[in-house]
């Protein structure tokens, strides 16, 4: 059915073109022989093809263009006729003898063009006559094309300023009047098109109309180009007249298109000076008109205009552009109760961009916009509509992009209130955007107020929001988010230590609400941030203000203790253990023995109660040993307790090699080089011997179970420990004991049952080389090594 329709249309078009060409042929013959009578007859017949009602606008256009070309030739002929002595006035009458109106008016416009050029009558009179006579075509499509033809042929003949057709007085007014009238009539025809034909083809018609819109809009372009339309004239007549037509036509398509046209065609300066009028029209448009796009365009243009030159800025202030736009938006939203939320937000988003560009110094304006938006959204709950959400994100991103500084945005009290309307997922995205902005611009967030505000903004990341289910969240996304929060925590910094402490407390307060999944990401940066503060406090005079309330390392450590404790509930004992040890070390540096002891205690408790995986245990024990070794703050008793425990843990590790390594590592706990009171050679030796025993047992166990001996690596490692303490002057370690250890290793390596291990061999070989090297050094060291035979 539809295909047939299209086919038929092709046929009709072909027939129309054929008829047109045939008559054009006879017309050409008449033109060639200067036969005016025949020329008129055949041209009228040719133009009769345009009387068809069977073609869609698209196809009709094709036919029209052919006729248009032919009419150019006819116009040339008319011009020559007048040169040959035929009066143009007679010609003007003659063409009006045609019985059919459409050909008659096309011919009239064509002669009219020649008439104006001849200057035998004022251009304005001819134009006025033409535009009046064209009223005879009330058929929308035919009328639109005819008037479009009129507009086309008159384009270069308007009596505007500087034109050769300029008349005596008020000549621009005439030109404007002509274009306005043609515009008005064309728009009426265009709108009327919608109501012609059956209702079921409404959509098709709408599409066809859309194709024709530029015919109407062209008039506005012409208006925009008329020389001499100054601001006053634009304000007093052009704009009101155009708007009157736009408002009165009550047609959605036309109103949207024409408003857009007005905005695009006339200079920004005019828009600025006529904002009242232009904006006043907006609430009067049909409720279905996509006014948000129109206004957005306007604001965007004005913003660009403001950006173009600083000289124009006073104009914006003078006309109070912001408050006018703001009012207008409010009214439009009221006038269009069915406007989707997306539209509302888009409007505010555009207004915000406008004010950010035009009044970057007026943060209160930006906040007003956000506030107005909140007001309009209130009661709507979380916004579910995807597009609306996108717009809210755009709205919220605008200040970030403009200022590149979240601090500015934090001053916007309504900012978080707008964020409330985002659904949880988008809220998080927005929060991430904010964090990224901070990272990118290395923004320093340095006061507690800002931190509070910031955490309010990103609370979607900080804690579970209502209605979020774990299974909705992608693991990787979650990690990504939390990592960015972790980075953010590092960015919060103030040189003022008091303030910094407050910041830390605030952050702590917020992150502790985050639940177990988040703590493992957020606690470490907080801990390190705090430790950094501790070190800074250390650098200062003790208690600089003598104030009880002031920040002390002790206070911070208390806080840290509680913070890390939260981690153990997660549970994340390994992480908590590391952090305890870090704190202990910091406390050591502050010479706070009880604090450090407490941290160790916590770490030990975790080790004993929570860390059950053997691998984790190994890692933990080495961390403990390493940290403990560096602790200088402990008195003998405390230290003994802690080292005793540590060695005990070491010996209880599951695997023999692990036991062995932990035990020989413990030897360092009894020998701290720069502390004379911490050099207990005997206990070092006990540790090493114990390690040897374990290594031996390990060796036997592995040969028992696997049928071949394990590696002798452990022995070589212990040998190295021996060498270390030997060199450090531990009298308990003698050259003979080293010698016997070397022999033991050599024997083991040569044993048949041992599977050769290249790594171990190399290790042993380089150890021996080291001994050789030390010997050759000579002096005290060389002497010391002398007895050892490698």
């Amino acid at each position, binding site marked *: 059915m539809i295909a047939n329709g299209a086919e038929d249309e092709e046929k009709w078009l072909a027939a129309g073109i054929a008829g047109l060409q045939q008559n054009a042929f006879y017309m050409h013959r008449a033109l060639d022989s200067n036969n005016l009578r025949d020329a008129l007859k055949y041209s009228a017949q040719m133009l009769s093809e345009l*009387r068809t009602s069977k073609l869609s606008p698209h196809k009709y256009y094709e036919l029209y263009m052919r006729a248009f070309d032919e009419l150019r030739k006819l116009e040339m002929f008319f011009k020559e006729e007048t040169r040959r002595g035929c009066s143009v006035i007679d010609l003007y*009458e003659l063409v*009006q*003898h045609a*019985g*059919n*109106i*459409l050909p*008659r008016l096309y011919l009239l416009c064509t002669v009219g063009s020649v008439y104006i050029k001849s200057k035998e009558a004022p251009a304005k009179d001819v134009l006025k006559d033409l535009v*009046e*006579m064209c*009223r*005879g*075509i*009330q*058929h*929308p499509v*035919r*009328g639109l094309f005819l008037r479009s033809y009129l507009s086309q042929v008159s384009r270069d003949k308007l009596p505007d300023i500087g034109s050769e057709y300029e008349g005596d007085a008020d000549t621009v007014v005439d030109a404007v009047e002509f274009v306005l009238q043609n515009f008005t009539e064309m728009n*009426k025809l265009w709108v*009327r098109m919608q109501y*012609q034909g059956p209702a079921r083809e409404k959509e098709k018609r709408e599409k066809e109309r859309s194709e024709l819109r530029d015919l109407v809009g062209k008039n506005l372009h012409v208006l925009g180009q008329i020389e001499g339309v100054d601001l006053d004239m634009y304000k007093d007549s052009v704009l009101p007249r155009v708007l009157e037509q736009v408002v009165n036509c009550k047609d959605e398509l036309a109103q949207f298109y024409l408003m857009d046209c007005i905005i695009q065609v006339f200079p920004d300066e005019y828009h600025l000076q006529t904002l009242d009028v232009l904006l006043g029209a907006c609430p009067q448009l049909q409720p279905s008109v996509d006014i948000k796009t129109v206004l957005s365009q306007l604001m965007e243009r004005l913003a660009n205009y403001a950006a173009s030159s600083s000289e124009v800025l006073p104009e914006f202030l003078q006309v109070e552009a912001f408050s006018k736009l703001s009012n207008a938006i409010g009214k439009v939203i009221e006038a269009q109760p069915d406007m989707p939320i997306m539209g509302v937000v888009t409007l505010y988003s555009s207004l915000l961009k406008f004010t950010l560009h035009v009044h970057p110094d007026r943060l209160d304006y930006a906040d007003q916009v956000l506030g107005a938006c909140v007001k309009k959204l209130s009661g709507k709950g979380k916004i579910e509509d995807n597009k609306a959400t996108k717009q809210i994100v755009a709205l919220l991103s605008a200040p970030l992009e403009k200022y590149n500084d979240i601090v500015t945005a934090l001053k916007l009290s309504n900012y978080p209130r707008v964020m409330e309307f985002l659904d949880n997922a988008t809220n998080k995205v927005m929060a991430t955007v904010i964090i990224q902005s901070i990272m990118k611009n290395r923004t320093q967030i340095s006061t507690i107020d800002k931190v509070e505000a910031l955490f309010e903004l990103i609370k979607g990341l900080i804690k579970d929001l209502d209605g979020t289910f774990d299974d909705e969240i992608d693991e990787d996304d979650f990690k990504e988010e939390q990592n960015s929060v972790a980075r953010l925590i590092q960015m919060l910094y103030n040189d003022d230590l008091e303030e910094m402490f407050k910041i830390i407390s605030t952050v702590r307060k917020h992150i502790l609400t985050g639940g177990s999944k988040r703590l493992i990401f957020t606690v470490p940066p907080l801990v390190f941030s705090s430790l950094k503060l501790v070190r800074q406090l250390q650098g200062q005079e003790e208690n600089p203000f003598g104030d009880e309330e002031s920040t002390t390392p002790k206070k911070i450590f208390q806080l840290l203790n509680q913070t890390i404790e939260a981690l153990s509930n997660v549970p994340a004992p390994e992480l908590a253990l590391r952090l305890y040890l870090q704190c202990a070390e910091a406390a050591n540096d502050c010479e706070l023995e009880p604090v450090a002891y407490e941290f160790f205690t916590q770490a030990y408790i975790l080790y004993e109660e929570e860390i059950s995986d053997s691998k984790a245990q190994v890692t933990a024990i080495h961390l403990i040993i390493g940290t403990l070794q560096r602790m200088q703050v402990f008195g003998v008793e405390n230290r003994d307790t802690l080292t005793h425990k540590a060695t005990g843990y070491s010996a209880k590790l599951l695997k023999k090699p692990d036991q062995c390594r932990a035990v020989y590592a413990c030897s360092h706990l009894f020998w701290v080089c720069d502390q004379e009171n911490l050099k207990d050679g005997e206990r070092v030796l006990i540790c090493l011997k114990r390690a040897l025993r374990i290594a031996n047992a390990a060796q036997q166990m592995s040969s028992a179970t696997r049928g071949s001996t394990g590696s002798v690596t452990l022995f070589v490692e212990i040998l190295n420990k021996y060498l270390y303490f030997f060199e450090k002057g531990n009298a308990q370690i003698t050259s003979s004991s080293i010698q016997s250890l070397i022999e033991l290793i050599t024997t083991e390596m040569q044993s048949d049952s041992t599977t050769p291990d290249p790594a171990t061999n190399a290790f042993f070989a380089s150890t021996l080389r080291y001994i050789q090297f030390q010997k050759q050094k000579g002096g005290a060291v060389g002497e010391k090594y002398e007895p050892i035979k490698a």
Partner: protein
Amino acid sequence: MNFIVGAFKPPCIVSISFADGRTRKQVPLKKENGHTVMVPLFQSQENIVGEVLIEPIHGKKLEHTGVKIELLGQIVRELDVPGELYEKKTYPFEFSTVEMPYESYNGVNVRLRYILKVTISRNYVSNIVEHQDFVVQNYTPLPSINNSIKMEVGIEDCLHIEFEYNKSKYHLKDVILGKIYFLLVRIKIKNMELEIRRRESTGSGPNTYVETETLAKFELMDGGPVRGESIPVRLFLSPYELTPTYRNINNKFSVKYYLNLVLVDEEDRRYFKQQEITVYRLET
């Protein structure tokens, strides 16, 4: 052969010429046989002056009982007493200030002609007769009163229009200006045209014949207007072959002109309103 041919040929050539024949305006006249000839144009009260030339066929004797010329139906002039003609002879004639109040008219059922008729009367054989048509047109001064035609018409709840023609009396080269204003449109109008119709009535009483011809169909509007539209009218009369309005010519006939405004809807129904206009001949 010649003898036989000669026997049927008229024995002489009769021709009528006008004294100012070379300068007088000529107008076309359609004859009964359909051919158009150019004939001189006169108006009332003019002198009709000329000559009749009678030329016998080479030396033949033409006997006659008298020669006369008549302006048909009205005036007779004796040109010659009975006698014989041997060679060509010219008879001047003159009808002075002839009253010709009616214009020549060539209608459907009626023709008004002016003819000069020369008769050479003969005994025993038929008279020799020659005709010469001429045309009379009379001019009317500009009418002192010439009101516009303005009227509101309509069909209730369907269509209301108001039309206005700038005058009620138009001369033959005049232009009708006006506008059609649509007050109410509830039908789908396809187009609108203005017709010029001529109504010729002949006879009287029960024997009256009325003949109506549409002389012009002039499209005023293409497509359907909405309420409030006003459509201009500009119709040049010169292309159409109009005559002045003739009212009761000698109790024989009358010719009247009407403007017929026709609206056609999409179902090809026609809505029309006819208004008489007076057409007159203005001296140019």
